[in-house]
């Protein structure tokens, strides 16, 4: 039974492929089918979709061919007289039974595909993907690369989005730090979120998994082809939902090892020296960078926020009041609002810098200089 079913699925989907133009041959702009899969789960879903679509198409054409004939042949304008029949038990039972059998035929491969998809056992590498408004954070938890972690933010310049600059090839589908994984290794993605629900999805791998704050979900893939794959957050997560893409680079084992080395060096450098004492100008300059990557989406470059949704920092009581309140708000956020706790996302230096920046920018002229050591102390 299973073998014939498989051949049937293969055969039908091959026909469907022919009908639907192979996505590989059609130009990307006019893509008519799912993207060509590169993992087993993706491939199974792809074939299943073709199989389903084809059966539906055949039934659709069958039913509407009958109707079409009737519309043509049984017209009043042609003088056709209405027959009087209005029931027929045998026919009525048949069109309950036949669809039921077709559904069972569909359910068999559908069940098998799902079992394949959900198998996240024995991964080679485990990566946690955390959704933030509006970026992704990645922690390599287990396997080669353990300990690597970074944030992945949209790399498309604002000017392209606002039409002041021509749009690049990967407009909205490019990030500063892509996820890198080795080819032919099983990767388990754990998803969670920091604020609202996001969704981590990659069509070529056949996975999509919601990232729910406070919970951990998982999905797994084994990419069988090197390359760069692009997806997007797939659950409405507020203002910049359309601007938090997912980019995965599948590379050879050697390249992956090199990448891990490089990341570890970068991370060590980024930690900075928590005991270094900074000048106000140094802090402000660095703080502006931190602000632009982490805060600008809500509080805006001019510090005026978005009235009713995100408060202005320019002239804000907290950003001009006691240091401790300001530090507390950035470290711990405010629950029930979009203001997240940045304590677990940013280093002491980052937080000290961004706070210094906020206290000395726009109309805020407190002259306060916050040192990383103060943040370290405040964390306790």
């Amino acid at each position, binding site marked *: 039974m299973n073998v014939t079913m498989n051949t049937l699925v293969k055969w039908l989907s091959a026909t469907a492929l022919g009908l639907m133009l192979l996505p590989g041959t059609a130009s990307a702009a006019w893509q008519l089918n799912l993207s060509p899969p590169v993992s087993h789960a993706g491939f199974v879903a792809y074939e299943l979709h073709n199989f389903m679509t084809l059966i539906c198409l055949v039934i659709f054409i069958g039913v509407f061919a009958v109707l079409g004939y009737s519309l043509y042949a049984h017209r009043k304008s042609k003088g056709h007289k209405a027959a009087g029949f209005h029931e027929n038990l045998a026919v009525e039972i048949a069109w309950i039974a036949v669809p039921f059998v077709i559904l069972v035929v569909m359910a068999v491969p559908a069940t098998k595909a799902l079992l394949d998809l959900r198998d996240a056992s024995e991964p080679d590498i485990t990566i946690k993907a955390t959704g933030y408004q509006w970026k992704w954070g990645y922690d390599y938890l287990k396997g080669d690369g353990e300990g690597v972690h970074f944030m992945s933010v949209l790399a498309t310049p604002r000017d392209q989005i606002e039409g002041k600059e021509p749009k690049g090839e990967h*407009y909205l589908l490019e990030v500063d730090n892509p996820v890198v994984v080795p080819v032919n290794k099983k990767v388990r993605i754990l998803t969670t979120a920091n*604020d609202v629900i996001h969704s981590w999805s990659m069509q070529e791998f056949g996975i999509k998994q919601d990232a729910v704050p406070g919970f951990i979900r998982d999905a797994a893939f084994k990419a069988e082809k090197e390359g760069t794959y692009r997806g997007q957050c*797939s659950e*409405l997560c507020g203002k910049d939902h359309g601007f938090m893409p997912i980019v995965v680079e599948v590379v050879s084992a050697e390249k992956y090892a090199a990448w891990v080395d490089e990341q570890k060096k970068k991370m060590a450098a980024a930690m900075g020296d928590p005991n270094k004492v900074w000048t106000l100008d140094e802090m402000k300059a660095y703080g502006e960078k931190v602000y632009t990557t982490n805060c600008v989406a809500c509080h805006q470059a001019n510090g005026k926020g978005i009235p009713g949704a995100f408060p202005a920092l320019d002239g804000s009581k907290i950003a001009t009041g006691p240091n401790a309140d300001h530090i507390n708000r950035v470290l711990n956020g405010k629950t029930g609002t979009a203001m997240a706790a940045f304590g677990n996302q940013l280093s002491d230096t980052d937080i000290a810098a961004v706070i210094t920046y906020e206290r000395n920018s726009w109309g805020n002229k407190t002259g306060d200089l916050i040192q990383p050591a103060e943040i370290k102390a405040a964390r306790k």
Partner: protein
Amino acid sequence: MEAVHDHHAADHDHHQPSGLMRWITTTNHKDIGTMYLWFSFIMFMVGGAMSMVIRAELFEPGLQFISPERYNQMITLHALIMVFGAIMPAFVGFANWMIPLQIGAPDMAFARMNNWSFWILPVAGSMLVGSLLAPGGAAGTGWTLYPPLSVQSGMGMDMAIFGIHLLGMSSIMGSINIITTILNLRAPGMTLMKMPLFSWTWLITAYLLIAVMPVLAGAVTMLLTDRHFGTSFFSAAGGGDPVLFQHIFWFFGHPEVYIIALPAFGVISEVIPAFSRKPIFGYASMVYAIASIAIISFFVWAHHMYVTGIPLTGQLYFMYATMLIAVPTGVKVFNWVATMWRGSLSFETPMLFALGFLFLFTLGGFSGLVLAITAVDVQLQDTYYVVAHFHYVMVAGALFSAYAGAYYWLPKWTGHMYNETLGKWHFWLSLIFFNMTFFVQHFLGLAGMPRRIPDYALQFADFNRISSLGAFGFGLSQLLFLYIVIKTIKGGKKAEANAWGDAPGLEWTVPSPAPHHTFEVPPVIK
């Protein structure tokens, strides 16, 4: 069947206040039906205008007209207004007008409550539309209102919640009224199994509404207390679970789909036999199919949640249950086709819309079946494929059916025939532009374009442009309907009591336009 005594009607009219007060105080099912229909059309225009803004923003990549926040507010209000303000009230309008006429009742059972259930609507509608002016704007969460995003939002969210409460109250009152009317006020001899299918679909829909509107009210109330009173139903930090909301929402949300679809089926089941000049095929199986669809609709909600992390067994169960709905739905489609088979078919505008419905709703049903398959849905969830799917069911399904019903019964309501040529234009323009707008969205979804985004990658540009152009055309074509209706109210060929010559049903035994009071003496059905 007896003709009506319309001299009574004239007498009663004298007691009616005139002008505006007539409409504010009316307890007459026909007046209230008319108000429901106008209200729904106005909301359809408002929600439609929002969709024009959405499609204008999506016409090309980049941000052009509105900010991402406003964009999110537009999609949220567009959906809430279309579902609760346009489509549902439209079918309640049909119910008010037609159920008493179809079952030979003098009016609805609770005439004054009927007035209230209508007049709550404009308040709720203003609440939704007005929330655009709230500080921080309207809710920007999508009509699904998922927390924690909806807990974050500003006051516009509270207005939406309050609006939803009011809409729920209105629906429940309307449903109680419909159930009581159908169960108690049928003319002698009108047994349930002789009742026209439109009334049947509403009887079942009304039960669905009473079952699920309180569930929605509960969900949004929990949201409200999470927002303002420190509860944590949907916050993991306080021991709650954001996904709990989705379970409750979709326990309402899936039957809601059939709350919209069943009355649409009902209208189609009236129109197709009338223009096939043949009784509906398989009347009894139609009734059983409606009932089984309604029952199964309670047990499939998590097919909207395949990627939230429900367990494998849950995914399997909800997949099988969802596929099962195809069986009774198939029965309906086959029965409609069999009704036309060897009939004597003519293609006036109501029939054209019914055929359009049949064709496109079936397509939407098939894309639904594809989405039911979990492994495939994982690829398509939250993409434009889903947007295409539900617009085939909601627009080509519910809206086309409402148009079929409107053209079918306009002569009864106004006493005039509408302009057939213009009606046909309206149909063909709607059909072409509808497909231009939504068919290509299947491809966008397959290629991976997420829904609810104000800007998109370059590879999606071509199909989006086609879709936007289609949407503008579709929007404009609907103005033609407004023109046709106004023209028909003002004049036109006088309609006979049976405007279609030999359409079945009690409503065609009373004069056109139907007098203010009908069936004061119940007709006798053999």
